[in-house]
């Protein structure tokens, strides 16, 4: 890679956006720099499932021809998008073989918003199949590797997006978060990841995993960049009945308005401390909280007493919804179809057995079981009740403070293959993230430094009130600004 290219890809999204707007850089230059970086890093990290390659250069040249447009806040900015989001004319696999070479004719709402804002979509990022996993090792195609150490996982399920951002392939990416799938890989890859409030971003075009939990959100290298992307993708969509009709706050204004953390009450849930957390993670998070206090925040002890039940509730609700959501992949209309089926049952059974990976099949079976006649009350209904209690826990805690903080992941990035044979242990990796999806609240993860033992990134999770993304981003921006961000990972090139 040329030095110019390296310099360009190291910029933040906000910086590159401003330079493009001022014509200090052309869209073609920026896009070409990203393509160079992709070519240099992709063999080592495998962050992308689809690289649109030369096609995006033509788009960039067309943008340059038309000139910068102040009405387009992402004019000329190259981004990547998780393969769980439909992209008109570009293959969408959801990390699964069952979709085959499915190419949708419709953009996801969030993708359409990016395009309307003038962004260049470089490609589709790798993911755990149907977003089921915490390491991106459940991708049907290849595992993605962590740009900070390619022997380690990037987290998941938006591991491709996090790796793509951390490696400098793009200036931001859209991920999806059903139980932590944006925040946890952001934590493991040292980037910023935001899961908005349920309903803040339309789910239209997001291939559903757990419909009542799924949210689309940005992964970026800075908090400001996350705010920029959220400003573009947030808003009501008449095609998603669960999208909120509330107006979108001025996130950039909120960031500009906050210079320190005075008056901010940070709640630290007892359940997010202590047991099971790697000491290097605890230490980095504690240092960040100390910094927050220096910046004027007060620390409040709070409780989320039903947190221990969140994994159980989540692993009933999410698979139940998934078992129904994934029924449409039946080999009848699109995607993979078994060869010469004997009869209808054979068509279904073989198409699905051949098309879905082990973890997806496991969750479909779990979900089918918990919804079965005679088990519904004991499992699904009970889980829905627990979910309400968890939501109430958060409401009570957030009545006493403005932000809740804790580690996004109990450990830093682990080695490839280390947990693949132990699904329960893998499920435990989401212990700090998934209760937030059950509550439907917004949360983001910021990098707070490198682990003292592993040298791998540690992320702090900050959780806020429903539709309080503005306050949350503003507080995170102050703290992250004081702590600094690791930026683009250098090591992965040519590794």
């Amino acid at each position, binding site marked *: 890679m040329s030095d110019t290219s390296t310099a360009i890809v190291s910029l933040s999204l906000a910086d590159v956006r401003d330079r493009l707007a001022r014509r200090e850089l052309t869209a073609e230059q920026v896009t070409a720099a990203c393509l160079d970086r992709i070519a240099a890093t992709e063999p080592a990290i495998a962050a992308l499932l689809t690289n649109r390659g030369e096609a995006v250069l033509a788009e960039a040249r067309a943008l340059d021809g038309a000139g910068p447009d102040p009405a387009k806040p992402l004019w000329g900015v190259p981004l990547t998008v998780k393969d769980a989001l439909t992209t008109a004319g570009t293959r*969408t696999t959801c990390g699964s073989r069952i979709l085959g070479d*499915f190419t*949708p004719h*419709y953009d996801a709402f969030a993708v359409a918003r990016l395009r309307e804002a003038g962004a260049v979509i470089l490609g589709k990022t790798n993911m755990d199949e149907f977003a089921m996993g915490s390491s991106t090792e459940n991708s049907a195609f290849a595992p993605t590797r962590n740009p900070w150490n390619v022997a380690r996982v990037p987290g998941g399920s938006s591991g491709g997006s996090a790796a793509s951002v951390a490696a400098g392939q793009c200036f931001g990416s859209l991920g999806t978060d059903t139980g932590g799938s944006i925040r946890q890989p952001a934590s493991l890859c040292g980037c910023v990841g935001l899961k908005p409030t349920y309903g803040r971003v339309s789910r239209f075009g997001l291939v559903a995993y757990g419909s009542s939990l799924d949210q689309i959100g940005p992964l970026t290298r800075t908090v400001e960049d996350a705010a920029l992307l959220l400003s573009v993708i947030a808003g009501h969509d008449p*095609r998603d*009945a669960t999208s909120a009709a509330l107006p979108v706050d001025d996130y950039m204004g909120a960031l500009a308005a906050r210079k320190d953390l005075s008056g901010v009450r940070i709640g630290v849930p007892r359940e997010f401390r202590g047991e099971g957390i790697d000491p290097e993670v605890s230490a980095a998070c504690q240092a960040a909280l100390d910094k927050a206090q220096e910046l004027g925040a007060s620390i409040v002890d709070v409780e989320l007493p039903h947190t221990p039940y969140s994994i159980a509730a989540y692993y009933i609700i999410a698979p139940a919804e998934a078992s*129904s959501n994934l029924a449409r992949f039946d080999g009848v209309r699109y995607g993979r179809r078994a060869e010469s089926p004997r009869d209808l049952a054979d068509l279904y059974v073989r198409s699905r057995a051949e098309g879905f990976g082990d973890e997806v099949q496991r969750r479909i079976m779990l979900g089918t079981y918990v*919804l079965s006649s005679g088990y*519904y009350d004991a499992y699904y209904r009970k889980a829905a009740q627990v979910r309400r209690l968890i939501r109430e826990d958060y409401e009570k805690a957030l009545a006493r403070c403005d932000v809740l903080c804790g580690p996004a992941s109990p450990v830093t990035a682990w080695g490839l293959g280390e947990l693949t044979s132990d699904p329960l242990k893998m499920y435990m990796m989401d212990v700090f993230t998934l209760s937030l999806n059950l509550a439907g609240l917004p949360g983001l993860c910021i990098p707070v430094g490198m682990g003292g033992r592993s040298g791998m990134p540690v992320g702090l999770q900050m959780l806020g009130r429903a539709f309080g993304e503005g306050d949350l981003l503003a507080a995170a921006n102050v703290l992250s600004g004081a702590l600094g961000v690791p930026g683009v990972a250098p090591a992965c090139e040519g590794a």
Partner: protein
Amino acid sequence: MALYEAVIGLEVHAQLRTRSKLFCSCSTAFGAAPNTNVCEVCSGMPGVLPVPNARAVEYAARMGMAVNCTVNPVSVFARKNYFYPDLPKGYQISQFETPICEHGHLDITVNGQTRRIGITRIHMEDDAGKNIHSAGDNASYVDLNRSGVPLIEIVSEPDMRSAEEAVAYLKALHAIVVYLGVCDGNMEEGSFRCDANVSIRPKGQQEFGTRAELKNLNSFRNVQRAIEYEIARQQDVLEDGDAVVQETRLYDAVKNVTVSMRGKEEAHDYRYFPDPDLMPVRIAAEDLARWRADLPELPQARRARLMEQHGLSEQDAEVLTADRALADFFEAATAVCGQPKKVSNMMQGALLRELNQRAVTVDAIAMRPEALGELVRIVEAGLISAKIANDIFGELLESGAMPEAFVKERGLVQISDTSAIETAVDEAIAENPAEVEAYKGGKTKLISFFMGQIMRKTKGKANPALVTELLQKKLG
């Protein structure tokens, strides 16, 4: 059947008359080329979401009100999961624990006895597509035009005791959906269809017998015949000392039998759960109040009023109220001439005959009710004969012309001038001496022969009352 009593409940599916589907904006039009009224939502593509059709919710609520249901201000869409090629999402979006309407009833009268049939619930759901099996290339095709079309399912209590009661209930429901305009009621196109749960039990026994669910009952007649067959079949089974099996049975209208389709052991576990893509359906109190105030007079009430106000027989009132447009037509025509019985007769005679010949409904013709009222009036006033009225009815129906002007223009006005008629009477008598002799010899029925002769001479315009009077006088 003396020893046994039938217990029947009906599940009626009515397609709501909305322009677009329940969860997307595709057209609901019937008969389009396969897979042309289809989008990414109703074909179950990845990542798409349903958005409910507000008009469908309104129609379902109105139907509930019309059959005395409680309309729930909050109801919940639920997924009914099963695999079938005509079901693109792998689940149907229906309502399960909290349907939009519950606890209603409908009174029916059979053989002079009025009985109250409970309505358990009405819920909304989207229809499946259609599998088409082609013998030619031994393949199956799927047409998704119907996929996502809005339906309501109206579930009755097992309150009916005979096939006649079941048909009476079904006809009453049919009349209501059509009156409300929430369904076109077309049974041939499947817009209004019915499954019947039938069991029998020894008279006096409280517990229900084992039931069979009958499907493919696509006409009132088939409902009647299928239930009658099934009652007799179950009776034979019991009398042979066997047990009735719980199963789904398909009615074969050609052979008039029901045939086992699938047993209980093959029954689906639908794994219902609230659809997370849809918020609970909330209906504002103001909307409920407005819809209730807008409820039209329903068939039963209108029938009673027509009998009371216009002195119609029960049978006449029933025919005229079977269709709201017909009843509206009747009342408008009667307002013009003040002759309800004559209007009723002309509608059930000439009008229904001409409608049936053309296979159209009364709202599709050019003739206005005012024209029919005027036609009755000019017949009664002796301006034209009933025969002329009958002869020109088809033309009036097609053209929409007003009858009085029409008959004057065509010179069809009756001859009531005695001298003109007298000439024709005299001629007829002179030309037919043999018949005159026979008449005088006692064959008085020959008066109609002379009437025919005179009508031919006057091209049907002679006033028949005057002709009869003159003939009787002259033939003395």
